[in-house]
């Protein structure tokens, strides 16, 4: 989860920049194709991250000042 989040906003910014560059029409076709490919790749990976459904629910416990994670049973949430 840490890897995703650190790059997600950067990726989004990069993608926005690519979209702007591409729509400006000021770059060569070769560059455009490269940017297009890169943009599509980023858009896909960002969408993929958002569409993922592998969420974890954990309980943060504290014992003697030490933090640790335990699995949290959220089957309750499924019922309702």
């Amino acid at each position, binding site marked *: *989860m840490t890897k995703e989040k650190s790059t997600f906003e950067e990726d*989004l910014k990069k993608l926005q920049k690519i979209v702007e560059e591409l729509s400006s029409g000021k770059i060569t076709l070769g560059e*455009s194709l490269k940017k*297009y490919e890169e*943009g599509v790749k980023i858009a896909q990976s960002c969408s993929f*991250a958002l569409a993922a*459904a592998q969420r974890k629910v954990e309980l943060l416990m504290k014992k003697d000042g030490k933090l640790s*994670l335990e699995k*949290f049973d959220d089957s*309750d949430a499924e019922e309702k």
Partner: protein
Amino acid sequence: MQKPNKHIYTVSEITGVIKGLLEDNVGEIWLEGEISNFKAASSGHFYFSLKDQNSIILAAMFANANKGLKFKLEDGLKVICFGKIDVYGPRGQYQIIVERIEPKGVGAQQLAFEQLKKKLAQEGLFDLSHKKPLPKMPFSVGIVTSAQGAAVRDILQILKKGAPCVDLVLRSVRVQGEQAAGEIFEAIEDLNNFGKLDLIIVSRGGGSTEDLWSFNEEIVARAIYNSGLPVISAVGHQINTTLSDLVADVFVETPSAAAKIIVDKKNALLAELAGFRHELDFSINDAIGNLENRLTALTHTLKSPLDRCLERQQQMDELSSELNYNIRHFLELAFQRSNSLVQQLEALSPLSILSRGYSLTMLMPQESIIKDISQIKAGDKLKTALNKGAFISLVEEVFDDERKINI
């Protein structure tokens, strides 16, 4: 009682009498008034006056009595006190020793809330400039609430359905009772220290104002204010606005609403990404289309030099056929001219002269034409060419002058 025993009191004596009279006859009372000249001594005792339009009475509230006081005493506050009337000998003053005090009109708790709210507002805890923006997409969210409560169920359920890409770290706390505020404070700190999180939701389901009170405690408000991570406060139902709500970066009315913020963010991002994809496709197609148009235009302009080339070729063809004609004409002219020259030449040919009866005489063997008599002498062999045929002869005699011949 007037004269018989003339007793002279000492000051302390009479003070004691007055004290006894007051304490016996008045004793413990309820008293209503407005606070003025409030002072909190370093000893922890409170000293103030209570007044109404016409009168004033001194009041003291000792540390052991004011220790559990929820609200702050301040000048101008209208209160109802319970206490006993007492005389303070050293100053010759009567006063009320306050045991309990309640604000008049509003509840003590409400007053405490208003007072704390005012204080925190003055300190800038609610300032918009301090509010942190939420991340574009919180992929991992910390939740401070009770693991057994309805709030966590609501949040988990909505996120599971709407944004299952979000990981959750729950820090379970008591959300009401005396320990609750301390636990909430600690949980906010712990989640900040845990790292790896994008956002914290501080939440509790609905309840009475008293139930939600922990979220009005100063340490909770300060923990939220000092949180490095953005905090969404989602406490209770619609009408309750807690200090947590006011301090938080974003506040919503219910736990479900907090979860919906995240779901909405996710959906908005997906839409944005789809938009980006569309723009990318459009731009690249546009770029290719433009180039195609340019190419077609260029092909057109390329065609015209070809045309020009053909034109030139035609021109050249014309010129070359003209040239052919000219050459032929020139040749014809030259031919005619050479013919006439040949005729002229023929007319001048010695042969044609011979046909008219002349002959040519040459000295043999070198066949040099003899034009002058000095060229020959007697005995030379001569060749004479006629119009038809030739003959060889020998020179017998030579004369300088034809007329001198005398045969």
